[in-house]
């Protein structure tokens, strides 16, 4: 498959829009849209409940995606896969179960300066509740994690480490394996929301304890996320929410919880979304084999650098297709609007990473992020539109 045929699979891109905001959410290929529709038309019923055949068909489809997900990230077992609403819920799940078990007064949770709000706030809430301390590891001016400093912050007080696999602002890809080795047994949670659409993932090779990501950032439906956790952790964790499907037996005196992973999936899940997500996994695996994302990222960086007064924020060597920048005398929000008028969709703002904006000393950035459907024509449109920005603002 080349870029043209990949692009043709996305109905929404037929308008000619240069969609450069995939880090926020990717567009959906027809096969994902159609899989969800066909599931509703032909296979839909609630899961894990019905005595009738259709419910079994739906359950098979839903559980099939759990197996598929386990294979996608090379989990040891499909029992290690918990479906959530998204990355945010996956991280909150760990913070309010495992986190509450492990973190106490005077303990520390270690994160980095490049985290998204969703990998800051749940830990902040946990630390406030427990009287623990949130410790933040620094990055350098290129947006690369200072590993020596990071290592020095891991102490006997550190009870949990939470890091992003790839930064949603800087594009930096963190060396997760090294971090897990440094942690030396201290549980590590990886926020992989920005990585799964671009990197081949092997959670066993990474060695992390928890791994969270979202369907909607990898060509799948919204409202579906994945928490991968080591089985021994999931087994020992209390449930996250109480309700249907997470129980084995209920009486008014005592409830026996269901086994892992169902213990963490209270209530009717996003069944059709999960089924659509299965199709998105297949799509992603196939698309990445032929994607020119890395070359296009480099081309984008080179072309942006040639624009006078434009500064790229984040210069990590190992990076994802996310490029943030600022322009002298123009606020990113104005860049975003002028680009929009010229048929180019980018993100402008703090990207849910306000502390990182403070660290970088910018109020906001403009951000270009690529998906497998982007090609050079999108970058040409971007460049043309950026010249318009210069025309307007001088």
């Amino acid at each position, binding site marked *: 498959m080349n870029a043209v045929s990949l692009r043709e699979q996305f109905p929404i891109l037929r308008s000619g829009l240069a969609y450069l905001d995939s880090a926020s959410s990717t567009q959906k290929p027809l096969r994902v849209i159609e899989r969800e529709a066909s599931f509703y038309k032909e296979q839909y019923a609630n899961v894990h409940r019905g005595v009738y055949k259709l419910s079994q068909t739906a359950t098979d489809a839903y559980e099939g995606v759990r197996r598929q997900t386990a294979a996608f990230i090379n989990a040891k077992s499909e029992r290690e896969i918990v479906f959530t609403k998204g990355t945010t819920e996956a991280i909150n799940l760990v913070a309010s179960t495992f986190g509450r078990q492990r973190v106490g007064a005077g303990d520390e949770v270690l994160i980095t300066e490049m985290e998204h709000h969703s990998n800051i706030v749940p830990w902040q809430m946990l630390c406030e509740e427990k009287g623990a301390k949130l410790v933040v590891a620094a990055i350098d001016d290129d947006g690369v994690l200072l590993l020596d400093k990071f290592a020095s912050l891991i102490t006997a007080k550190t009870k949990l480490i939470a890091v992003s696999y790839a930064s949603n602002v800087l594009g930096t890809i963190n060396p997760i394996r090294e971090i897990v080795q440094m942690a030396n047994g201290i549980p590590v949670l990886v926020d992989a929301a920005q990585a799964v659409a671009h990197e081949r993932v092997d959670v066993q090779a990474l060695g992390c304890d928890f791994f969270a990501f979202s369907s909607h950032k990898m060509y799948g439906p919204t409202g579906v996320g994945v928490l991968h956790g080591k089985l021994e952790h999931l087994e020992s964790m209390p449930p996250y929410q109480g309700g249907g499907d997470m129980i084995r037996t209920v009486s008014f005196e005592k409830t026996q919880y269901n086994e892992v992973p169902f213990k963490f999936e209270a209530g009717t899940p996003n069944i059709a979304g999960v089924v659509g997500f299965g199709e998105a996994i297949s799509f992603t695996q196939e698309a990445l084999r032929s994607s020119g994302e890395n070359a296009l990222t480099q081309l984008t960086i080179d072309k942006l650098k040639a624009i006078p007064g434009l500064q790229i924020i984040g210069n990590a060597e190992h990076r994802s297709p996310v490029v943030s920048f600022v322009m002298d005398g123009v*606020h990113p*929000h*104005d860049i975003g609007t*002028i680009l929009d008028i010229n048929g180019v969709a980018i993100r402008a703002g*703090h990207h849910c990473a306000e502390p990182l904006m403070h660290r970088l000393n910018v*109020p906001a950035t403009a951000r270009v992020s690529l998906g497998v459907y982007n090609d050079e024509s999108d970058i040409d449109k971007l460049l043309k539109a950026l010249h318009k920005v210069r025309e*307007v603002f001088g």
Partner: protein
Amino acid sequence: VDDLRELYQQVILDHYKQPRNSGEIENANRHADGNNPLCGDKLHLTASVSDGKIEDIKFQASGCAISTASASLMSEAVKGKTVSEALALGEQFRGVVTGGTPELHDMGKLEVFAGVRDYPVRVKCAVLPWHTLRAALTQIEEEVTTE
């Protein structure tokens, strides 16, 4: 490009590049901070009000062209006006940029913001200074401590 010029009129670009009444009044008896979390626009507004009249107003802005120019043009428009006149003008401005008021009622230079109504996500930028002004002018506790 016409759309572009409709939104980014020369007056707006001029007030963005050279904001009027920029700074902070030392002995201000009204002040408020405005913040637009979506894009990171920040505004610090100070004003001197006596006998119900805005004698002076200054602001410090870190934001986009629309919000900065809006603050600058607002400061020119309300300086010398009474508090109730300024609040009424704010309501009128909000009506114009949100599209609620179809016609412009002789708003002078403020009319350049009429183009913002076609950009719903940018309306917040244009009205941020006016929200901040209203907060500054109506803060009860501040009035209580005023000498």
